Every structure is written in C-alpha cells, then in structure tokens.
C-alpha cells in the first residue's frame, strides 16, 4: 500500500483560535523563602535563584537557594515535629490533616494548575485535568491509610521511620510532591522535600496551603535548591529515609552514598519502555496509545513508551496512522487550552534532546517530524519519530526524555519480548492485542514494574508504580507504597 497516496490534509481550513487560560486569578510572589518549621524563612547565605517560564523565557519569581545550614535547620524542624506532636497524635487525627490538604488542593485547583503550566511548560489541559486532580487524589488515598496500617501488613506491627528527605523531579512537580508527602505523613513520618530547580513554584504554593491547613509546624518542610542541596539532604546524618525520583545516574550516586548507613531508600529512576503492538491489536486505539505514551507531557515521562515495537505485518499501517495523528498535535503556548504538547522544560533539556536527534541522524536512522508551527521564543520540540533503527542504536538504548520515538519491527512474540527486555531499564511497558491470553503471557514475561495492556500512561493512587533493574527500587502508590515509609517488626 502506497503510504503517500490518498493522503489526508489537516492543516488548512478551519483552525482553532487561541484559547488562553487567564492568569488574573493566580498569585505568584516575587520571591519565595524556605518553608521550615511552619514559617517562611530566608536562606542563611541569602542566595536566591530565578525560575522562568520555558514558553517565554520570562522570569516568574526567585526562590531561595538552601545551603547546608538551611538543610540542617529543616531536618531539625522535622525531627522536632516528629518527636513532638506528630508521632504522639492519634493516627486517625493525623489522617484528618492529610484529608484537609486534599480538600484544599481541590478548592485551589485552578490556581495550582495554571502555575504548574507557567513554571514547567506542560499544557494547561494536562495540569488541569490530570496533574492537579491526581495530586489531590493521592492525598485523599493516603489520608485514609493513616489509621489502618494494621491491615496492610498481616502479622506484623509497623512503626514510622522518622524524618524522610525527599527529592523530586521537574516533570510532574506537584504530583511528585503528593506522591512523596502523602504516604510519608500517613505512616507517621515528617518530611523535608526539595522540588526541582526549574519547577519550585507549585511546591511553594503547597507550602502556603499546608500552612493554611494548620498542619503542625515542621511536619512538612519544603526547601528549594539545586543538585548540591539534594546531596546535602541525602548525606545528612539525622535523616532516616531518602526518597528520590530522577535520573538513573543520580540515583546510582545516591545509592552509593547511602552504603554503610542505616537509611532506607526508594529510588524511582529512568526508563526506556517498549510499547509492543501486535497485528491483532485494536490498531486505531494502539496508535492513540503510542501518542499517549511518548508525546503527551512532551515525552518528559520516566515511564514513557519511547520504543515502539510493532509487528511487521501492521507496521506500515501503524506508522502511517501515527504520522496522520502527529499532524493533529498542537505544539504551543502551555496556557492555551488547545495545546497538546507544551514547552520543553529547560534550555538544558532541549539541548539534550537536540543532541539525540543529531545522534539518531548520524547513526543513519530516518527522522520524521510533524509539520506544526512552533513559536519563535521559548523551548520547543516537534513530535518526532525515528525509523530504520535497531537495538544497537544509541537512540534506542538511551533515555532521551523528549517527544522522540524510536520504531522497530518484530515478527514473532518471542522476538518482541526479547527486544522489550533487552535493556538495563525496567520501569514500564505496553502491550496491544485483542487476545486476552496473549496479554497475560506478555505481562508475565516483560521485566518491568508497570505494564499497560491496551492502554498507556494510566496512573491512580491505588496502583503501585516503580521499576525493575536500573529503573529503580521500591513502589509508590497503592498498598505496596506504604512499605517505603514504615519499619515492619514482628
């Protein structure tokens, strides 16, 4: 079948006018201090850094750069709160505080969503419809566990750990904060959390919300800073638990630096997931699954379906449909309600993506990008696919963290599985087939922590998430997500 004949045309005729989300209902301060012991306090060394809007490169605010002394202060505040009110409080009362956080997040949802898109670059539709509601749902879910831990660990008693140091990434800023804070609090711990350098604002708004909720001071402390700040937190002697989400290379450093200590840790790292499409799949929905897997959130997703493995008999059809679908994806202003793919989070990340695009082409792969317009300023990348690649290509092996998909074909189920597992990563995978038995065979065989069958990138607070192999250790979400924040005793 000639893929060029009988083409569909998507870009003339009726267009969507700009539909910007208004920003006159939000409040972003010029400057944010560190949230320690229930108060906003200036950093001891007086240093601040800027956070910008990656769509316009305009400065949004400055936030404090926490130094060693500030981290020490935060950990002390967390310890004081832990030894004081928090561990003495009845579990059901602790739960009620967490319910309050959830409720207030729902009330302030629109403001949070707008600021999330401004600070990080993701489309307002994603922040509004997915990030913020899921964050509130995570608080709701774990609030309910606070007084029910006896049912989660049959035959065992549990104790809280103490102070948890938590470091989160820039791809789902508020949601990652919820994933970390909610279970930690529910299990009776106190927290020092550092948002990512490029996306601190919703964490600071969360700090304000936590203040308004009346959470006892020091139970949650939020400190902004860069890589060194994170390292200080990890190495602090009075921290009982480390939780980190970010790249595998930093995760490795953290695991090494914790060696010989008694600190518990969970790491949620990178991935290079295979999305496997069989010939008997519901093809149109599988194509949508590819798009959900790699293009939404600009591909800034650790569990992104960044490798497509499509059975050869349907490869041409799938690729043609994918190209058509790519033409209807709108890349643009994150605050426009019709934007599908927003801004790349930072200049640095854009450089990384561009270098991989070059690597791919230098390796001899064929690159295809959609023809959409992109704005003149800001950081942007069109949805991109590479064909003519194999397992030995760097763009097939390495995590790009952008809207870039590498496409390979396979012939038999065994071959598909071999290719899917042939990676040091093991975070997620996808399988598309109309045949139930095949689904279970594939999900059994893929060595990854989350497998999506006939869907992709679905998240729920009740559903455990985490990786095999170099994608990390530990699970977040669900009953299994409690493990990370308790000590289980006979």
């Amino acid at each position, binding site marked *: 079948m000639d893929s060029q004949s009988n083409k569909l045309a998507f870009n003339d005729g009726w267009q969507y006018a700009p539909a910007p989300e208004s920003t006159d209902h939000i409040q972003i301060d010029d400057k944010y201090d560190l949230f320690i012991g229930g108060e906003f306090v200036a950093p001891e060394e007086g240093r601040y850094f800027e956070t910008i809007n990656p769509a316009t490169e305009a400065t949004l605010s400055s936030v404090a750069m926490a130094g060693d002394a500030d981290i020490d202060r935060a950990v002390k505040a967390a310890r004081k709160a832990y030894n004081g009110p928090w561990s003495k409080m009845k579990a059901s009362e602790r739960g009620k505080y967490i319910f309050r956080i959830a409720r207030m997040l729902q009330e302030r949802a629109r403001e949070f969503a707008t600021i999330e898109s401004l600070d990080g670059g993701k489309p307002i539709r994603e922040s509004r419809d997915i990030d913020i509601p899921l964050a509130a749902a995570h608080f709701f879910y774990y*609030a309910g566990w606070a007084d029910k831990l006896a049912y989660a660990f049959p035959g065992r008693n549990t104790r809280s750990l103490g102070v948890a140091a938590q470091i989160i990434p820039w791809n789902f800023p508020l949601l990652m904060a919820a994933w970390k804070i909610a279970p930690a609090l529910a299990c009776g711990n106190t927290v020092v959390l550092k948002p990512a350098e490029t996306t601190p604002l919703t964490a600071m708004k969360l700090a304000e919300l936590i203040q308004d909720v009346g959470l006892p001071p020091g139970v949650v402390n939020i400190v902004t800073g860069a890589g060194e700040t994170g390292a200080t937190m990890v190495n602090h002697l009075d921290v009982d638990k480390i939780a980190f989400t970010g790249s595998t290379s930093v995760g490795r450093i953290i695991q090494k630096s914790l060696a010989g200590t008694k600190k518990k840790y969970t790491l949620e790292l990178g991935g290079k997931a295979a999305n496997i499409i069989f010939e008997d799949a519901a093809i149109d929905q599988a194509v949508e699954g590819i798009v959900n897997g790699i293009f939404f959130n600009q591909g800034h997703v650790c569990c992104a379906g960044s490798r497509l493995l499509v059975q050869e008999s349907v490869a041409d059809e799938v690729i043609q449909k994918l190209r058509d679908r790519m033409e209807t994806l709108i890349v643009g202003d994150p605050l426009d309600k019709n934007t599908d793919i927003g801004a790349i989070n930072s200049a640095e990340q854009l450089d990384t993506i561009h270098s991989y695009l070059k690597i791919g082409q230098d390796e001899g792969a064929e690159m295809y990008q959609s023809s959409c317009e992109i704005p003149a300023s800001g950081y942007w990348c069109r949805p991109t696919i590479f064909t003519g690649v194999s397992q030995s290509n760097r763009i097939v092996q390495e995590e790009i963290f952008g809207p870039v998909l590498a496409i390979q074909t396979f012939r038999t189920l065994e071959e598909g599985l071999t290719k899917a597992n042939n990676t040091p990563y093991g975070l997620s995978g996808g399988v598309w087939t109309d045949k139930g038995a095949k689904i279970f065979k594939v999900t059994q065989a893929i060595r990854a922590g989350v497998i999506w069958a006939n869907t992709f990138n679905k998240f729920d607070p009740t559903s455990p998430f985490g990786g095999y192999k170099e994608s990390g250790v530990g699970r977040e979400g669900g009953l299994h997500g409690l493990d990370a924040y308790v000590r289980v005793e006979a």
Partner: protein
Amino acid sequence: MSNAAARVPVEKTYKIYIGGKFPRTESGRFFALQDHKGAVIANICRGSRKDFRNAVVAARGAVSGWSGATAYLRGQILYRIAELLEGRHDQFVTELVLQGVSKRKAKNEVNATVDRLIYYAGWADKYQQVFSSVNPVASSHFNFSVLEPTGVVSMLAPEESGLLGLVSNIAPAIVGGNTCVVLASESMPLCAISFAEVLHASDVPGGVVNILTGFREELTTHFASHMDVNAIVYCDGDVDVATSVQIEAAENMKRVISRVDAEWVGDNGQSPYFIRDTQETKTTWHPIGG
C-alpha cells in the same frame, strides 16, 4: 407566661426518606415520640410494609449506578457526608438530648459519628486491596478474586444508639457499593431522619440509603422476608427474634448478619470486616498463552 413579642418557633415534621425524597408514610399512621416527662417531641411516621416495599424498589434501582461508581467517588461522597454532619453538629446534639442522652455523651456521639464516616471514607478505595487476591492456580491461568457488593441490604438499626449505631451500619454497607433500607431505632428515631437530610445534601444518589421509622415488631418480618433483598443486618433482639429472622431470610438465602453484641462506641465499632460482611467474592479465570 407569654410575651407579646415572643417568637413562635416552627416545629419540624419528621417524614421518611425513600428514593431521594421525603414522603410521609403511605399508611398515614403515626406514633408520638415523648420525652422523659411525657411531652410530645414529634409525631413520627409509623411506616408500613408498603413503604418498605417502595423503599426496596428504590434501593434496587440505585444499585447499578452506585456500585458502578468508582471507589474514589464513593469515598469522596462519604467524606462529604462527614463534612455536612460536622456542620450540623449542634442540631444533632439537640436531638440526642431531646431523646434522653446527656449533653456530654451527645457531643461525643456526634463527633464519633463524623470520625466514623471519615474512617469508612478512607476504606473506599482500599478494602479491595486488602481482601482481594491473585490465586496461584496450578494451571496456565491468570486467576483473581475480587469483592463485589451483594446488592440491597435491609437493616434494623440499633435500638440504643440513635446516631452512631445507625451510621456505623450504613457506612460500611454503602462504601462497599451496596444500597440499603434502614429501620431507625424506635425509641430514638429523630437523628435518623435528620441524617437522611444530611445524606440528601451530600451528593448521595437517591435510593442508595432509604430510611424508615416505625414499629420494629410490625416491620421486622418484611425486612427479613422480602425476596428482592440480598442481605439483612440486625443489631438487637433475643434468640427468638434472631431465629425468626433467620428462618424468613432463608427463603431467598439472604446473607444474615448479626451485630447484636457490637459495641458502637470506640474502635471496636468500626472495621473493614463490617464492609466485607456485605460483599460477595467473584473469581475469574483467564488463560495465559499465545
């Protein structure tokens, strides 16, 4: 001694709650609820078997929507009920006091009821995780067991606990996706009807909870024998009462749940096992292969 400027209060009419509406009993009968001095507090509907019949129809009609709602949504709704009950704290304290409870105990009871609702709200999206299983069968099959709500539950609420006992039975049944028809305490019916108002204002779909008032002796047999009720919960009564309920329930193999010795005050009055009481277990097999 009346003051010409004194305001005449408007007395509340206590109706029953069926299918999201507040009708009077179709029988038109009533009984007078009196305080310890013999003064009439209110005229309470003396519910009939036809009211019960209508309530079961409403409850059955609400099953598919309510059991089909996500666990998250049910949890949100239970939380909302708690919010609204908290807001009406004083009204419920007043009603409990009218019915003979001391003020201190009444306050504790209302607080405990709010907290109990929060407790069950928190179970909505978790009990499935605790009680379900994937079963390692000895053949190439994926085999899993999940809980499903039994359907319509009829309930004889505790006689001695007009609010906490009532809610301690309703909450675990509905958080699990069931709908129910409840007969309120005969001696302490006021909070049941006011609680119906709270339910009504909390996004609980009509028919999920139906609340009747009336005479226990007259209505128990219908609660026990109706062929379209899936389970019956009772909280009081001697061996004879229990036996006759069990005999009548056997006609359609209702699940019979006795909570006769339950302590509603304190942590023993709440448990995920109360949720499990009104759940069925469904096991599914599917081949694992090519």
